[in-house]
């Protein structure tokens, strides 16, 4: 179907602001294919089924809206954790600030500087394409075509130190597009950490292949710069008996759209996707998750919590699709919001689509205010009202944060969250 004129113009306007990167050669075909798909399919529109609650305008306009740079005080998140640190400034790799990419059990290369023949050729843009059905994700295709850099991470053993990507935001009008490919080989283990606001506008795609009996932990903390905008996609394909866990903490940001597209291809695999978000004022946060069960006896969990105030908006669109082959599936999905005032809103769209007959799937969604009895109880013990509210906010988010296996990482995030909450009050 040909695009309407107005949509065609929107695509061309966006594309005119971008240059198709020259390299690497192994990615050229994937980039061309992605560009064709964007041209043919257009960019997200408000009328699209999965963009009804989130305005795509700021994510698709040719130039990003400037975003003020916030100077964070205190130490960087995860600084207490022994990690391999890789720094991007407004989407540009900074070799000076980054650790040596050589590490035991893992090969890390940059997309922009990878050799001619590359393993990532079989994954780059490939998982993204698979994730375009049945719901199209044009901003991910745009990313595949135009990503200027990214990391190609291949874990072959148990990688002791987490690989930590640090995204610094320093220019008010930066527009960053990064594309990462992660391959966790059979029996290997890898933890990927991502932190920071990244850019005024950030588009990132992470394609992850988790082989049989492999483990992949992914923990993200999307920074606090209030005016930043981000659209992220995680496309994962899971083998048998493997573990995939992805957690995202979001604080502030005028627009965040986090999509996770998970395919449980093998049997007996586990996939958990979770998120905690805290938003104030002009905050729009959207989690869109699509989990497909193909293999037998797999478990999937989606746990999303949002705390909203001063007119903030939270969106959750979560789907569990259980194909006929996926008997003994255990699917769970919960999305909850804590509305700290009457101005904020939470829009949830949970979906189950099940074709197998021997499965367990449950989902729930709630919106509520702070528990006044708990509030009074805390205050009657001497805790100030604002501290009591923070404590109850953290308690509300705890169930999502508990999805992180590594206690040190989880505690680091909680500490950061406490700092963010207490600073917001000042």
């Amino acid at each position, binding site marked *: 179907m040909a695009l309407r004129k107005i949509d065609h113009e929107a695509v061309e306007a966006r594309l005119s602001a971008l240059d198709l990167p020259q390299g690497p050669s192994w990615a050229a075909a994937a980039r061309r294919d992605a560009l064709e798909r964007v041209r043919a399919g257009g960019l997200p529109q408000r009328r699209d089924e999965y963009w009804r609650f989130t305005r795509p305008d700021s994510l698709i306009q040719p130039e990003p809206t400037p975003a003020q740079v916030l100077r964070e005080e205190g130490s960087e998140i995860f600084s207490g954790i022994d990690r391999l640190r890789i720094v991007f400034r407004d989407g540009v790799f900074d070799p000076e600030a980054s650790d040596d990419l050589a590490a035991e059990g893992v090969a890390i290369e940059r997309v922009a500087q990878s050799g001619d023949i590359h393993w990532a050729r079989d994954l780059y843009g490939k998982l993204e394409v698979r994730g375009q059905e049945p719901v199209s994700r044009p901003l991910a295709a745009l990313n595949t075509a135009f990503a200027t850099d990214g990391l190609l991470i291949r874990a072959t053993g148990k990688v002791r130190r987490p690989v930590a990507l640090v995204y610094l935001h320093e220019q008010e009008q930066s527009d960053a597009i990064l594309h990462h490919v992660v391959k966790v080989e059979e029996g290997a283990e890898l933890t990927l950490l991502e932190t920071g606001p990244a850019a005024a506008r950030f588009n990132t795609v992470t394609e992850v292949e988790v082989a049989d009996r492999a483990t992949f932990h992914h923990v993200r903390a999307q920074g606090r710069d209030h005016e930043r905008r981000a659209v992220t996609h995680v496309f994962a394909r899971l083998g048998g008996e493997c573990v995939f866990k992805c957690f995202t903490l979001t604080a502030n940001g005028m627009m965040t759209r986090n999509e996770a597209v998970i395919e449980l291809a093998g049997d007996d695999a586990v996939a958990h996707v979770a998120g905690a978000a805290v938003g104030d004022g002009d905050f729009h946060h959207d989690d869109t998750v699509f989990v497909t069960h193909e293999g037998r006896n797999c478990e999937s969990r989606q746990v999303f919590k949002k705390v909203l105030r001063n007119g903030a908006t939270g969106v959750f669109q979560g789907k569990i699709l259980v194909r006929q082959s996926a008997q003994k599936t255990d699917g769970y999905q919960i999305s909850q919001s804590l509305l700290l005032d009457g101005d904020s809103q939470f829009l949830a769209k949970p979906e189950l689509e099940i074709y197998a007959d021997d499965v367990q799937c449950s989902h729930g969604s709630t919106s509520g205010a702070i528990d006044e*009895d708990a509030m009074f109880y805390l205050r*009657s013990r001497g805790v100030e009202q604002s501290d009591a509210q923070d*404590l109850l906010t953290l308690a509300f988010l705890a169930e999502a944060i508990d999805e992180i296996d590594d206690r040190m990482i989880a505690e680091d995030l909680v500490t950061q969250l406490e700092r963010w909450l207490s600073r917001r009050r000042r």
Partner: protein
Amino acid sequence: MLDIKNLHVKLEEEDKRILKGVDLHVDAGKVHAIMGPNGSGKSTLAYVLSGRDGYEITEGAVALDGEDVLDMEPEERAAAGLFLAFQYPIEIPGVGNMTFLRTALNAQRKARGEAEVSAGEFLKLIREKAKTLQIDPEMLKRPVNVGFSGGEKKRNEILQMAVLEPRMCVLDETDSGLDVDAMKLVADGVNALRDAGRSFLVITHYQRLLNHIQPDVVHIMADGRIVKTGGPELALEVENNGYADILAEVA
């Protein structure tokens, strides 16, 4: 210590008067008991003292060592040394008991201009207090009151009291829902805190608790007023004859 003068209270949302002129004076170091039939206003008095929303004070005053209590926020009352042991302690999922207690203690200390207690010091303090109240260390790790039995909840209230060391303790039907052994444990906890500088206001339906916590003064409350005041023997009279006789006598 505590001075309640001609206190009149109605419900905020409806035109229902609950306290109709309560007068009460508690000296430092004394234990006062308030007894009375259901609906006499005992729990309302406890809530009003602690600063709970939903009540409107239409007349009267409450002072703690001369300081006006009714003007204070609940957390200010706590920092000033007022403590309410809840009849129905609140469950707070996601907040650990230890975190809760330490946050509360340090908030009060901060409000009073005292140094905060370190994690190490606090751990020592809490372990010692928990042991005397026979509180399982596991209970300290669990979220506040979540999954606690009735007895555990009440012991947890007393533990909070022991840690926060308030000077004016209000116990709202702390005996309700307790078996004899649990009641004894709770009473021992309270008795251990009795001190020349600390006063108690013990609200109860039954005389039973007062066998374990010996009051200095007993008040009978009915229809929003203190209708009779006496010594410990008054509690025994209630136990033997019920409230009807006393109410008939003062009517």
